[in-house]
Each structure stands twice: as C-alpha cells, then as structure tokens.
C-alpha cells in the first residue's frame, strides 16, 4: 500500500478533466492511502450548495468511509470568500504548512492537477 497525495488546483466548471482526478482518487483508495488537497480554484468544488455531476462525484469521494482524506487550503478559501461552514461535511480546512509536512514526511507519490 502506497501513500498518495493528490493536489487538485482546477475548478471542474472550467476544466472537465478535474473530475477525472476525483475518479483517480476513488480508484486509488481501494488499495492505497489517499490524501486529496484542494488548492486555488480546486477549492470551489468543496462548497456544499452546488449540485451537479462533478459535485456528486466529489461528495461520494468525501464520504468514502475515510479512505480518502480531503483537505482544503485555508488561503485559497479566504481568497474566494468561502467560509468553513459552507464546505461539504468531512473536508478538513488546512494549509500549505501541513501540505509540506505531508509531502516530505509521509507521501510516496504526489500528483498535481
């Protein structure tokens, strides 16, 4: 079992391939530990009130019985005026300091999208 860190920086409303990254996270989580870090416009999918194809896929990912740990970058959330209370339950608000700790101390493979 490997420790994967997936960094999602794209808004699925702008880039349809962003949702493939959620598929990748879900499939990897069947055999590996997966952390998904939302940053930049990647945090927009974390809003609880949106409802479309990518958001349904994303919510399933957050609800995968803890197999995928999803974190959202606090700086990116603040830049976009998104309060913690607006996020899909299960998302952890975190930052790049924690990201670097994860990257350097407990990640076997990192992928940026």
């Amino acid at each position, binding site marked *: 079992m490997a420790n994967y860190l997936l960094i999602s920086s*794209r808004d699925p409303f702008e880039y349809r391939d962003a949702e493939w990254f959620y598929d990748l996270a879900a499939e990897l989580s069947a055999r590996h530990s997966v952390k998904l870090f939302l*940053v930049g416009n990647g945090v927009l999918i974390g809003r609880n009130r949106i409802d479309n194809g990518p958001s349904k896929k994303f919510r399933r990912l957050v609800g995968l019985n803890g197999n995928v740990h999803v974190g959202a970058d606090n700086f990116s959330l603040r830049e976009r005026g998104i309060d913690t209370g607006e996020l899909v339950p299960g998302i952890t608000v975190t930052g790049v300091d924690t990201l670097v*700790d994860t990257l*350097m101390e407990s990640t076997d493979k990192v992928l940026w999208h």
Partner: protein
Amino acid sequence: MSDAPAIRKKTLTVALMDGPYVSNNPTTAFRIVDAALRKGYNVNVFAYESAVELSIAKQQPHQNPVKQRTVEEADHPTTKRLVENLFDSSRRNGAKLDWIACGLCVDERGSFDQIEGVRRGGPGDFLDWARQSDQTLVIATK
C-alpha cells in the same frame, strides 16, 4: 566540535511551468517553497517554459491609474520580488534554495537578464534533482 551526528536535510524539488499573471500556480508554488524553506528543507526549483519569466530582473512595479495610486502606494508585488524573498527566506532559515531557469526556454523568450541566484540549466538538471531529492512535485501547466 559536537559529536552529534549531522542530520541530513531533506530536499524538495519543484518543477514549475506557468509564467507570471496567468494562473494561481506560481503563487501556490511560491507558498509551498516558502513553507518548505521555513521548515528548514532544501528546495530546488526548475523553472521550465514560461516560468523562466518569473525571475526576470528588469520587472518593475507599476502605479495604479484606475485607483490613482502611485507606485509606492500600489506596492505591486512583482514575481521577481517574490522569488528574491524566497532566496532571503532560505538564508534566514539556513536552508538551500537552488533555482534553475531552463536555458532553451530563456533563449526562446529572450529572458536573459535573471535575478541573482537564478542559474541556467536544462531538463537533465531536473532529472538529476529528481533522482537525488526526497520528494519531487511537478506543477504542470494547463
């Protein structure tokens, strides 16, 4: 002289491809590099394609005519200043920052005049770094 064994610093290598003012990626990369340096990690940055323009020495801050602010009042952060700040951070934190601008990308863009600390290299340097580093993060362009 201390008998304590020297602790090897871990090294993070980052490949960046986006130039200034195009996407969030350089800002996020700068934040990651800054956090890594503050934590004492050594960092290598391989600036590829338009990312070589992040560190052009002749970048100048500008005034804001819409809001009628002077250069000083606008305090516009150029990307070269942000890169310079990262070099300052590396010195403050006792960490090494090595920054390579891809030579062919520099030639194509005429971005020869780079800030102090940035050196010329090529993809082979990135490969060497990736082999030698504890972690490699590739921030691909769109």
